[in-house]
């Protein structure tokens, strides 16, 4: 997502730090987002090989191990899955999701399909750290601000602190990949959750 930013925006700053609202929508390659979507971008360096990180993420059934608002992902076939996501008041919502781009070892993109309460899409990119510190993993997520009662409820969940949610998920991914476990101080949050 960070390529060519200077050309577009006048400096070398990454798109997620842009002061121009919505810059990512039009600039992030492969992201199935539309103008008006809420965007979240975040990078983290993980001291593990690119292929290993890609392979773990590519099995979407692993996502709930570090994305704590996702309760379960059921893989249907090589590109389709169903995501069961926690909603406020102990409820949950489910939607179908499809992989839109898959470049082994480098990039995965996905998008919710018809029936999602919140239209959403995302990409995760894996690049070798230029300083040889492992792999720079960049996640970009886009949500459509939804309408309707259930939509509002989900929106509350997603939009409360979407950046915080994304960065916590990435932190847990880093912990799990580097140390084999997700750090926790309290037994109720025992992790990794199988």
């Amino acid at each position, binding site marked *: 997502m960070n390529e060519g930013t200077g050309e577009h925006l006048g400096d070398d700053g990454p798109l997620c730090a842009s002061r121009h609202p919505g810059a990512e929508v039009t600039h992030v390659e492969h992201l199935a987002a539309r103008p008006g979507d809420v965007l979240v971008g975040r990078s983290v360096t993980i001291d593990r090989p690119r292929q290993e990180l890609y392979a773990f993420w590519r099995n979407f059934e692993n996502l709930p191990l570090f994305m704590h608002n996702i309760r379960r992902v059921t893989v249907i076939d090589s590109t389709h899955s169903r995501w069961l996501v926690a909603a406020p008041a102990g409820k949950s919502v489910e939607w179908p999701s499809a992989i839109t781009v898959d470049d082994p070892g480098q990039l995965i993109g996905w998008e919710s399909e018809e029936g999602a309460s919140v239209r959403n899409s995302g990409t995760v990119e894996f690049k070798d750290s230029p300083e040889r510190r492992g792999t720079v993993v960049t996640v970009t997520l886009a949500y459509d601000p939804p309408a309707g009662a259930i939509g509002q409820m989900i929106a509350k969940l997603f939009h409360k602190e979407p950046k915080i949610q994304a960065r916590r998920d990435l932190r847990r991914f880093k912990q799990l990949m580097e140390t084999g476990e997700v750090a926790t101080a*309290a037994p109720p949050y025992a992790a990794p959750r199988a």
Partner: protein
Amino acid sequence: MRALTWHGRHDVRMETIPDPKIVNPRDAIIRITSTAICGSDLHLYDHVIPTMKSGDVLGHEFMGEVVEVGPGNRKLRVGQRVVVPFVIACGECFFCKKQQFAACDNSNPAESADMSEFLYGYPMTGAFGYAHLTGGYAGGQAEYARVPFADVGPIVIPDGIEDEKVLFLSDILPTGWMAAVNCQIEPEEVVAVWGCGPVGLFAIQSAFALGAHRVIAIDHYPHRLALAKSMGAETLNFEESDVREALVEMTGGIGPDACIDAVGMESHGFTADSMMDKVKSSMKLVTDETHGLRQVIIACRKGGRVSIPGVYGGVTDKFPIGAMMEKGLSIKGGQTHVQKYTADLLKLILEGKLNTTFLISHRLPLEEAPTGYKIFKEQQNDVTKVVLKPAGITRH
């Protein structure tokens, strides 16, 4: 199990709470045999550190016997005696591989790491028995503790070595040692140490061990100054002498080559800026009272080094940035990279080259921990270090 829990300012209690369990594969459970109250526990006792929650178990200086290990822990065995570093470090991340264990990227749970990222720019490491800023991990002033990443932190103690000789490997000994290391002491140099609490006393001893020619210790408690003197330091009581004047004279007009601030926030003092700190602090205009640090920076010689093991958590004003820049000072602080130093320091203890028990003034049963906090807070002259023993533990 029985544990000391925090409930508010000057309100700590012994309570019965559930025993800890193995949660993650690399965990271990330790049955605690000795645990101590740290000066930084008084910051929690005074409630000047934010993000505490009622019921938090305090304590980050502890040791004991391994009673259970997780399935992913290939280092520890049940029955081993270990001292546990207060810093929780994964051993696998960029920072741990650089031995900057107190900067571990993975030990602070994702939920609590946000707060320190917001405050300091990057998330802090996890630590035992401290505020939720550092993870909210249950501490060691208890009968048992869960130790995460127990294949990295705990150091195994040989049989026959009494607890008290090695207990302080958990925090204050490596903290005093790193404070002296950060002074980059050269032979024939003079080191000045502000604060003769446990960390200051170990910093004095460490400075000598690392080659300092003279160490000048500064405090206002006669008993603590006497302990500093017993370690070979010259002493200055700031109620008796003007510290800056005295340091200039004692160093022939050059000034101390390196200065250690082992006081941290809430430093005492009677000067105008310190009074102003009190007023502003009570009005919430600044968070840290830093009179001591200002004096440290002013007193340090040109081109000297300032080392800050004392704990600060927030922001301050009236920081003498001009003195720092114009004199060309190097300043280094930080939470201690405990795991980096434990093996070397254990060796020095076993060789009899470090005295680690001289500062213990009180030994109490764990059940009397609330009293321990009260006297440590209120009688600082006499109470230099409180060691607690859980019930049923006979002293080693």
